[in-house]
């Protein structure tokens, strides 16, 4: 077990910079999830920690020891790959024992460790003798984790380990990984593009975009107070609605192009008075105005309704410029195309972003 420190880590491929100075201190036993769209550099960052990619600049330390120049084998890490990377010609047992044999552990010790890991992952005796190709996707996933567990490493690295599984299995394995990490207490770094995995698994979440850390913090903090428009749009499903708006002259309201005015949350926005903003509202924070809380946003003209059972998603448009808007309402709400719904939102659920930089706008302290 160990902490992992990234200091201004940089990666270049020729003239192309793919990681722009990432810094992060991962505490001992912490579960950090790195999330971002494909091509954002999250896998590259993980592979740099593993030692599979050269580090162009900056420093990576595991357990207080700088590992920049160390071989993967010397870094005391274990990695679970997206395609599991099980040795196809070896039995499940041999797959798990391979790393231990190379380290020259005594046979009895290897056997104890493999059987203990198999026990934790509920891999039966009969399964240990099989070859990987005779296993189901979920079983292979378990073996890949078993191979990591037996090594008893300082850090677990996961590279999108669930993306090859079907939806149902993914939910199950997600839970198992979380339980496993809680029980073993090993520092873990987990890369994914799936925002549900990102929200549910980690103690902290790093949102990476174009090789830059957009925000780092507990998942719920990122949901409640996204630091940038990118984070706001990436975290949460269905995605946040973004509207072009302007802060009123007195700094207490935000004016929508259709002429509607919404009161701003408490705080001093006077410094921003009159400036154009991007207004973000989560679909789940819009409510039917009839409930009488908050202030009427707009009268939404319904275009498409998706009934998910527990929820109903309504896609429509409103205002003079017919801005698109998605609303998430209770499953009992029924609406047909062409209906007009009056909606409201609480001021504290409004997110304001600078339209140019994408940074969150906060009231002056």
């Amino acid at each position, binding site marked *: 077990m160990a902490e992992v420190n990234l200091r201004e880590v940089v990666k270049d491929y020729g003239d192309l910079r793919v990681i722009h100075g990432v810094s992060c201190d991962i505490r001992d036993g912490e579960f950090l999830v790195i999330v971002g769209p494909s091509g954002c550099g999250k896998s590259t960052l993980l592979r740099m920690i*593993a*030692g*599979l990619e050269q580090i162009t600049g900056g420093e990576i330390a595991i357990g207080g020891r700088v590992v920049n120049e160390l*071989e*993967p*084998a010397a870094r005391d*890490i*274990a*990695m679970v*790959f*997206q*395609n599991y*990377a099980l*040795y*196809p*010609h070896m039995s499940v047992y041999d797959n798990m024992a*391979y*790393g231990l044999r*190379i*380290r020259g552990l005594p046979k009895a010790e290897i056997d104890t460790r493999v059987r203990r890991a198999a026990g934790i992952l509920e891999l039966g005796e009969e399964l240990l003798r099989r*070859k*990987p*190709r005779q296993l189901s996707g979920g079983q292979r996933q378990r073996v890949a984790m078993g*191979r990591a567990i037996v*090594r008893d490493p300082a850090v677990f690295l996961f590279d999108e380990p669930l993306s090859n599984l079907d939806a149902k299995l993914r939910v199950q394995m997600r839970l198992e990984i979380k339980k496993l990490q809680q029980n073993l207490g090993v520092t873990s770094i987990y890369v994914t593009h799936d925002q549900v995995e990102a929200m549910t698994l980690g103690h902290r979440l790093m949102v990476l975009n174009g090789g830059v850390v957009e925000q780092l913090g507990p998942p719920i903090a990122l949901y409640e107070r996204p630091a940038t428009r990118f984070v706001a749009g990436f975290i949460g499903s269905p995605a946040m609605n973004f509207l072009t708006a302007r802060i009123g002259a007195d700094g207490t309201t935000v004016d929508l192009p259709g002429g509607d005015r919404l009161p701003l949350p408490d705080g001093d926005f006077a410094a921003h008075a009159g400036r154009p903003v991007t207004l973000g509202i989560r679909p789940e924070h819009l409510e039917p105005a009839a409930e009488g809380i908050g202030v009427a946003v707009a009268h939404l003209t319904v275009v498409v309704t998706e009934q998910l059972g527990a929820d109903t998603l309504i896609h429509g448009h409103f205002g003079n410029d017919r801005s698109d808007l998605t609303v998430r309402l209770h499953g009992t709400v029924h609406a047909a195309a062409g209906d007009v719904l009056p909606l409201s939102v609480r001021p504290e659920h409004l997110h304001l972003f600078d339209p140019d930089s994408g940074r969150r706008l906060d009231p002056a302290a």
Partner: protein
Amino acid sequence: MEKRVVFNNRVLPYLLLTPQLAVTLVFFIWPAVQALKQSVLLEDPFGLSSQFVWFDNFIALAEDPLYLESLYITAFFSGAVALLALTSALYLAIQADRVIRGATLYKTMLIWPYAIAPAVAGILWLLLFNPTMGLLPYALGAMGYTWNHYTNGGQAQFLVILAAAWRQVSYNFIFFLAGLQAIPKSLIEAAAIDGAGPARRFWTVVFPLLAPTTFFLIVINIIYAFFDTFGVIHAITQGGPAGATNILVYKVFNDGFIGLDLGGSAAQSVVLMVIVIALTVIQFRYIERRVHY
């Protein structure tokens, strides 16, 4: 599900098959039947009549020390050719798999030798090693080693093995390279994280995964060394000196067309036929049960 094309016309399918069947019949089946027939006949010295002698030709072969010697030489020759061609091809493929810059050029050049006819390959190596005007004997002579494969049987064997293997390296290289590229990179990375160094990774992960390819190539290479190396031998040594490079397929030609022992030569071809059938059976059986990971 099996895919089947059903012809409505009863004649058309046979018509379409005719060219291939005709070629097979004229160039493969008919000569094979002729060889079988010839192998149980004994011709008179002037080729005017022949006599049915049952298996006397085969019995004579089995008792002929020169034939047994040739059998031994062939086994050694094909084993050496296969070993040399496989190991050098594997080495080159591993290197080619790692090359990033100029990889296409490197791979293209490595494939070229396969386009050269065996006889031409033989001539190339003969010129290189020619005792009177070759470059290498001159260099070897300067180091105090006398090269003359016209008189030294061991040197002659070495030369034909080299020439025969050289051509086959290209063929093996393509298969090994394809095999290497089919191994997922993450497997190698997983082994590296597990602590295996490059040599250990190769022997415990890469090589076992190449085993199906290697086995297939061993069979192919032995068949090549047995049958396709006639041109090399004919161009370089004509089976000499003193029969040191007289492999079975060359002896068939030598005994039949030079020695004019048609019966004995035909019997030898029948033996070769049996060998190639056996090798083919091994290969097909193997390919059917090929291990899929």
